[in-house]
């Protein structure tokens, strides 16, 4: 890295802080308790998990009743992916034994935040026995020699 550092303007520094605040607010919102379903979009949120290894990030999701040909993973920027799939049959609240709500769900949708930088364009997707596997290669960082 070059030793000369360009002097940054106060606005640049402020913008950086604002961005960090935005990220933090988004994370807080995501962690807030909310139902695992959304009536407006008729979506259920699947169970998912993120596992970080040395060279990749593995995201898995449990998608029962999903039609394999409709399973989609979309990169939403650098640190977020969106998983979606249509279900073979729709389920109603009544199927869960719930009578005080009305509504039907026909697909899965979930946004998953990726905790470390990854190369989303090299993402690989497998769907086996109802479980989705998304492999995201981690970005290589630079090394600094010990002086």
């Amino acid at each position: 890295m070059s030793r000369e550092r360009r002097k940054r303007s106060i606005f640049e520094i402020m913008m950086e802080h604002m961005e960090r605040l935005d990220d933090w607010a988004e994370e807080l919102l995501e962690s807030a308790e909310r139902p695992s379903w959304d009536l407006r979009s008729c979506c259920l949120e699947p169970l998912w998990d993120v596992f970080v290894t040395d060279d990749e990030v593995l995201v898995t999701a449990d998608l029962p009743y999903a039609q394999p040909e409709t399973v989609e993973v979309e990169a939403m920027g650098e640190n977020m992916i969106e998983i979606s799939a249509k279900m073979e049959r729709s389920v109603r609240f009544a199927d869960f034994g719930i009578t005080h709500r009305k509504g039907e769900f026909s697909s899965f949708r979930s946004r998953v935040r990726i905790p470390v930088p990854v190369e989303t364009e090299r993402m690989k997707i497998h769907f086996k026995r109802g479980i989705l596997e998304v492999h995201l290669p981690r970005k290589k960082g630079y090394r600094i020699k010990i002086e």
Partner: protein
Amino acid sequence: VQNRQDVKEPKVFGAGSSEDSIKLLREKGLEILNEGFIVGPQALIMRYCTERELTAIALLAQSFFKYPDPEASAVAIKKFAAITDKKIDVSDLLEKGEEIRLRARDIMRRTQSELNRMKKSQEYDLPLYV
């Protein structure tokens, strides 16, 4: 297990509360759980049985770590049926596998967040033995 997706027939391991029960498991051709530990209610039951010298066995099937796994349950039940020479039909459990996974979604989510809250990961901490 990590690679549960690639495992067609999950393995079942057995644990016993006494020498006799371990012998029984061996006779029935079960692999004994030699490494690792058991937690939760069944661990307590096993411990009390050992203290009171009662014969008890625990059957543990390889399963998904974070997802409901009716297939793994079916395999464990099948092994139990084989040990006790009883006929237990698990076809319903397998047929309704997807339905169970869908229904168990919220309770599993709740379980995961509770496990995080009670610092379940402490189990993996390395102890300070010198």
